[in-house]
């Protein structure tokens, strides 16, 4: 009994009291086994510790990383980042006026209706939406081109940009805009000096929500680009499910994860926290 009391005391001093620790245990174990350990195993594959026929090699090798860093693959990585960047910028330019209009200009009744229209695509999977776009692009004879992929990416990711921008602009204190007008600023100047800086958090959130998944996008380039566009997503797919070169595929994905994590860390360090 006394022992238990002391234990509880220590635990409460750390801050985690018994019940909470107990409650957190099963989900953390589940995530550790089925989410985090698989990543460690992917890493072990990439350095050759787990070899063919699941033979364990003692000596790690960098050969798969060297294979994955060949110029052809680097071009694919650069191409994916480029497509993701174009998608992000296009989505931002297209989405901002939409979010601005819904949040600040539309009447209350219209706003709720438009809001539902913006949220709905979130609930429809990329596969269905890309298939829908495919039916149009194929009748326009645009299927399997680079442009089809870019249009598809913008189409699929646009809601991911509109929503955070809307949420942000909707919270904007309108009296600040009125103050700016009263003090003689033009609408353009008010937008550039008040609205835009205040919506920066929404812009950044939207850009991350679009850019990060867009770099690894598989469905859009595969369905709309065919063989004409290769991205990290389609290359990973081919390496794993077509050529069964798991070791090189694992090395490629480890490099890719590091690129993504590096970007996120720079972001967190510079801006501080993801606020959506």
């Amino acid at each position, binding site marked *: 009994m006394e022992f238990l009391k002391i234990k509880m005391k220590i635990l409460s001093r*750390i801050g*985690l009291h018994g*019940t*909470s*620790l107990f*409650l*957190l245990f*099963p*989900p*953390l174990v589940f*995530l550790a086994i*089925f*989410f985090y*350990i*698989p*990543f460690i*195993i*992917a890493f072990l594959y990439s350095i050759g510790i*787990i070899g063919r026929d*699941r033979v364990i090699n003692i000596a790690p090798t960098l050969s798969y990383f060297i294979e994955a860093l060949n110029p052809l693959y680097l071009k694919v990585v650069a191409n994916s980042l480029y497509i993701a960047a174009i998608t992000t910028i296009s989505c931002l330019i297209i989405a901002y*006026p*939409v979010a601005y209009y819904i949040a600040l*200009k539309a009447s209350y009744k219209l706003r709720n209706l*438009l809001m*539902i*229209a913006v*949220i*709905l*695509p*979130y*609930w*429809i*999977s990329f*596969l*269905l*939406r890309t*298939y*829908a*776009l*495919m*039916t*149009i692009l*194929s009748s326009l004879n645009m299927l399997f081109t680079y442009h089809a992929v870019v249009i598809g990416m913008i*189409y699929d990711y*646009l809601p991911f940009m509109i929503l955070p921008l809307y949420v942000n602009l909707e919270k904007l204190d309108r009296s600040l805009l009125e103050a700016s007008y009263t003090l003689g600023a033009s*609408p353009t100047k008010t937008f550039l000096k008040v609205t835009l800086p205040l919506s920066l958090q929404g812009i950044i959130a939207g850009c991350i929500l679009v850019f990060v998944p867009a*770099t*690894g996008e*598989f*469905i859009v380039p595969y*369905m709309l680009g065919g063989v004409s566009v290769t991205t990290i*997503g389609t290359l990973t797919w081919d390496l*794993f*499910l077509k050529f069964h070169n*798991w070791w090189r595929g694992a090395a490629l*994905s480890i490099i*890719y*994860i590091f690129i*993504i994590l590096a970007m*996120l860390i720079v972001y967190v360090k510079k801006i501080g926290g993801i606020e959506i």
Partner: protein
Amino acid sequence: MSLTDNLMKIHTIAILLFLYAPIAIVVLSSFNEYGGLSSFKFTTRWYESLLQNSTVWKAFSNSLLVAILCALISVILGFISAYGLVRANTAFKSSIESIFYIPIIIPEITEALSLLLFYNLLSFPLGFISVLIGHTAFSISFVFVVSKARLAGFDRSLEEASMTLGANRLQTFIKITLPLSAPGIIASMLLSFTLSWDDFIKTVFTTGPGFQTIPLVIWSQSARGGVSPELNALTSLMLVISITLSYLYVKMIKR
């Protein structure tokens, strides 16, 4: 209304048309005798042939079973972790939170291939269970975020009142905490059901021979540019399900 306001209005309408036109066309062509877009004659034959397609029915029941179990398991694990974390006042709070946030941020394809390697190493049989585990590992985090938001806005004095009046921790949890969090719990169940129901990438990497879900059926028929009227019908049915779920979700989250 100024000129810029009008331009923004036109732009918004145009973008919404861009978002919804392809979906509308799929639904319309699913009722078209000739399939495509050129000429139109109303028919329900594509839906009838869909109902007789045994592959689709098998995939439908697979999808449904995986999604229901995924929703149940991830809601239990996700909710108790959110509850545990909100109630704990620990120095590690933000580190534990990031353990739950990382699965949302990491691109899905890297998670899918890691799971494949994991299963292969353990010679884990690929099929129903492997797919279910993959879906659940991903859903827990989403349930965690939704439940945490719900519990953060929770009036704790009600729990304290219950304890003061002599109820123990468990009674308070069952009689006070759980009913008050019910809308959040149902909302996150709907969310994880949809995530699982729609999932393609993780399913395709972790499935084995003979186990297909509806997204895999749509994929295998459309991957090479094959647009067919029956596929339009299947996609339209999936749209109806997704839209219904989202409607229920919004209703729950607003309560």
